[in-house]
């Protein structure tokens, strides 16, 4: 039990380190406003978490700081100039409606960040999908002007991207800063995979489905461009690391997690090419929650069956030994 708590805390630290790196990149591109957005989200989440735990007569412990990582995941999916009040509201929604109503971190059903993102998507879609250009600084209380649609949006519509690969790698394109810094995301993915802080099965499943479908049904002129651009747009990589491969949500066994990630990414890819739905993977991840739960139920069922079989085998062995002992005693 103690080992599990320890490992959960290490996972959280790993994820926080990678998220803070992305936040730093966000700050580099959009200035102090981006940092304030992240801080407001984190503060709102912690406050909401504390109140919820108090209402549930539970103590706030270091483990409950997972709400901070969820808040940072959300803030990295938002435009840097997003309304602070609405962002805080989304964080409260995530902590209350998507997490603590179901029992909090002990009984996770939804990814809080994904739920909060969809919540924003349904009520403030226009504000959510309009971004400042990189290197355009906006004051903390200033109203942003000259917003543009994301590079993902233009790719979904035209199948092309008018930026160099180098710029894509560095995230120097319009979009949610955390989700477009591809190089950093790739490094984060590798680190988290090696440290087993994310579900390898779900991550590999998600990426392989995207690559496979991008090859079979290209979204761009060439297959190579299709693979390259579909992986870097629509928050595919970001969501694959922090939402789809979230260990709290994805099935435990890599085998099932792979199929969960695979189907989820395949579904969202098809949505992107048929409806040009921006960031479909985040929306679909919420919809696929019952699939993850179904796989988890199956895992539990298999575990119980295996346990019952082991117990039956142990009982049979014990009975055999007793019978042998009795036989030996009778022989004597």
């Amino acid at each position, binding site marked *: 039990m103690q080992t599990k708590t320890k490992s959960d805390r290490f996972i959280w630290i790993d994820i926080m380190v990678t998220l803070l790196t992305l936040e730093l990149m966000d700050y580099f591109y959009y200035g102090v406003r981006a940092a304030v957005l992240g801080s407001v989200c984190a503060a709102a989440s912690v406050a909401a978490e504390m109140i919820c735990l108090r209402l549930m007569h539970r103590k706030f412990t270091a483990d409950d700081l997972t709400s901070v990582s969820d808040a940072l995941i959300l803030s990295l999916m938002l435009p840097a100039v997003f309304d602070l009040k609405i962002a805080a*509201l989304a964080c409260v929604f995530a902590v209350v409606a998507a997490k603590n109503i179901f029992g909090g971190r002990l009984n996770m059903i939804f990814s809080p960040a994904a739920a909060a993102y969809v919540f924003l998507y349904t009520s403030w879609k226009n504000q959510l999908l309009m971004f400042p250009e990189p290197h355009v600084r906006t004051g903390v209380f200033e109203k942003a002007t000259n917003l543009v649609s994301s590079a993902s949006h233009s790719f979904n519509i035209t199948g092309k991207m008018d930026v160099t690969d180098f710029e894509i790698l560095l995230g120097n394109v319009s979009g949610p800063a955390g989700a477009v810094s591809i190089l950093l995301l790739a490094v984060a993915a590798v680190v988290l995979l090696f440290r087993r802080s994310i579900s390898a099965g779900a991550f590999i499943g998600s990426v392989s489905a995207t690559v496979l479908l991008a090859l079979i049904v290209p979204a761009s002129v060439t297959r190579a461009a299709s693979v390259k651009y579909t992986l870097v747009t629509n928050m595919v990589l970001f969501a694959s690391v922090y939402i789809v491969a979230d260990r709290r949500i994805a099935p435990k066994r890599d085998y099932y997690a792979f199929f969960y990630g695979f189907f989820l990414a395949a579904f969202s890819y098809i949505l992107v090419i048929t409806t040009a739905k921006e960031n479909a993977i985040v929306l679909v991840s919420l919809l696929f929650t019952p699939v993850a739960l179904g796989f988890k139920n199956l895992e539990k069922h298999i575990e119980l069956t295996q346990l019952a079989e082991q117990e039956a085998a142990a009982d049979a062995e014990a009975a055999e030994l007793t019978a042998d002992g009795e036989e030996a005693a009778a022989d004597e």
Partner: protein
Amino acid sequence: MNKKKTAVFDGLLGDNTVLSSLMVISPVIMCGNTLENAIALIYAFSAITFFAVLLGSFVPRRLPYAAKIIINAVIASVVYIPVKSVAREFFPEVITNVGIYFPLLAVNSLIVVQSETRFYRMRRLSMTASLVFYILGFDAVMIVTAFIRELFAYGTIAGRLVDADTLISGLGLPFGGFIFLGLLCGLYRKLRSMSGRGGETGGDGNVSGN
């Protein structure tokens, strides 16, 4: 005597139609997003349920269960006709907004299921009083839900603009209704358990139809 009295009033708070038994929740979720809709639905629900259950109490008890259910539903469908005519006069626009949820009130659980399992087992006078409180229970939830959802989703109260700078438009949509009703239901249970009326888990656990 006290227990009997409580049973009669139960429908309003102790065993609220919507929050405890989760009956008639679809109109609340779908149409309980403006006070205008709420008032029209309250009128229709109250009139149809009251007269249908009252008239249904004259159906012989000896009949098979299925026959009684069908007769109750038919009575409600007949009561619906004049209720709709009146509504057309007073709420012409709302009828269009509410759409299919208006006729669906005629097959609500209070008429179809609860009438047989609860109301018709009571004496007619107690039944009438209890029925009134069950109806008021629905009305109260509908008003509260519609008021809050309209205010935060559209920034209006009964169609009049109020000064609200952050609107959550999703609250006016069906999913907003689901989430809001879930939260309200939890709050209701918490208050009920604090007042010492039954456990927190599951109301009476008697979800029935609709």
